[in-house]
């Protein structure tokens, strides 16, 4: 067999594949090695990714450029325009980022709340209207039964069944009412739909997961061992 770089990498891949699979038998040194390597190597990969896509192009290079032009051409207003390609305003996000490290300074440790608050506030805020336009409204729209739903009577019947299921599921999630009377009927309907839906979802995913395992075995048997063509 010719030892080409490709072959070496395939052997490495095969070793890793078998090491991970060995976990199915029990925890063992091979799995531990593959697991720790996976954590180390993908963190290392992330560093390269952040360096080339975030830190270098949007922080260090523009900031360095700002210092360079400020020294050679003198300060100008554009150095303080956050939208300019080279500006000193980048020191602000830099400083906010540094506040994370205040955790190690006991007296100033509360400052770590600033970067955390910025992230929590902005991203939770951003997510809500998106959930309304992307999920809530389309789901409600899709659930309402109209005359158009009955263009095909069977499809209309299914649409009514979907509506009943959605109503039941919503009632199941009422927290401030004891599940009694009409609430009991609604909640029962809801949980029946939920169980049927979850079963279907489970069964549906089996196929995709088996394909994944199939892909790994094809790699082992074809690319590595060459016993199948």
């Amino acid at each position, binding site marked *: 067999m010719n030892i080409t770089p490709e072959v070496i990498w395939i052997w490495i891949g095969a070793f890793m594949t078998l090491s991970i699979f060995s976990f199915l038998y029990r925890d063992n040194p091979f799995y531990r090695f593959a697991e720790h390597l996976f954590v180390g190597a993908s963190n290392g990969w992330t560093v390269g990714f952040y360096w080339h896509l975030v830190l270098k192009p949007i922080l260090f290079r523009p900031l360095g450029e700002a210092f360079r032009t400020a020294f050679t051409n003198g300060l100008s207003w554009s150095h303080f325009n956050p939208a300019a390609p080279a500006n000193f305003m980048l020191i602000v996000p830099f400083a906010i980022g540094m506040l994370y490290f205040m955790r190690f300074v006991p007296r100033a440790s509360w400052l770590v709340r600033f970067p955390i608050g910025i992230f929590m506030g902005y991203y939770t805020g951003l997510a809500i209207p998106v959930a309304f336009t992307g999920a809530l409204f389309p789901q409600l729209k899709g659930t309402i039964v109209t005359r158009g739903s009955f263009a095909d009577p069977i499809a209309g019947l299914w649409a009514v069944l979907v509506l009943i299921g959605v109503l039941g599921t919503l009632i199941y999630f009422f927290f401030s009412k004891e599940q009694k009377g009409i609430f009991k009927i609604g909640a029962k309907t809801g949980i029946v739909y939920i169980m049927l839906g979850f079963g279907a979802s489970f069964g549906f995913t089996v196929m995709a997961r088996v394909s994944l*395992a*199939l*892909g790994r075995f094809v790699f082992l048997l074809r690319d590595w061992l060459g016993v199948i063509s």
Partner: protein
Amino acid sequence: MNLERLMRIDRRIIFLFTAAVIILPLLFPFQMPMGVQKPTQRFFDTVQAIDPERQCILIATDYLPQTEAENHPMTIALLRHGLAAKIPVLMAAMYIEGAGLTLDAMNRVTDEFNARAKTSADSVVYGRDIVFLGWQPPPIVPILGMGRSIAAVYPTDYFGNRIDSLRVMRNVRNYDDIGIVCSISAGTMPLSFVQYAQSKYGVKVGGGVTAVSAPDYYPYFETGQFSGLLGGMKGAAEYEHLVEKTFHLGGRMRATEGMGAQSTAHILIIVFVVIGNVAYFAGRRKRS
């Protein structure tokens, strides 16, 4: 036999059986009878209806080795269909990470056809029957740009040949000359083709998607925005089946073989559930 012991069966035995039912059908392939669903049939018919003198097909891939088992057989089946029907095939990788797999599919099918060919007309010649356009980031650029001019988006092919030096490309300018764009994807690329290429330039789009994402695509097929849809390995197997039935090419049908393993795995799980329940009820009766 003590049924109660079955209830506490070591799960490693289950794992062993699972591995066996996946590996054995790979080593000893068998075929299952195959029913073809509407989205697959429509896909096949659309390709079949292309006039090879006027139009070609474009296979745009974006998937990584993770979903190779599902997506790769689709690419190969479509390639074989195109070449067997003498329709020129253009290939494009939407991301560079997938270019290796695209190349693999092309080489595999080219070798297969040429091993069988008796005359030069039967064989597959790069540049005459097939072209690999390569990769141009970001994907929106080729998706939109090919509506105007393919040569403008891909000045050279993957191997660095000038596009206008390739024979196929003399008759192919833009989407008008493409019978169907086959977007084989592990993500949402087929939707991008529908939103930008199909709605704007009217080119037909077929999607080849993973089993998990297939339900998200069916509505678009129902509205006619997709001219065909292959969902997961089952869709690929159905397409292989249609190609084989029409052209009798012989050779490996990877998804069809995979369906053997899929079926045995599904049956195994069902058998296990049945055994588990029998053991459970037997144990309960004994206790009561």
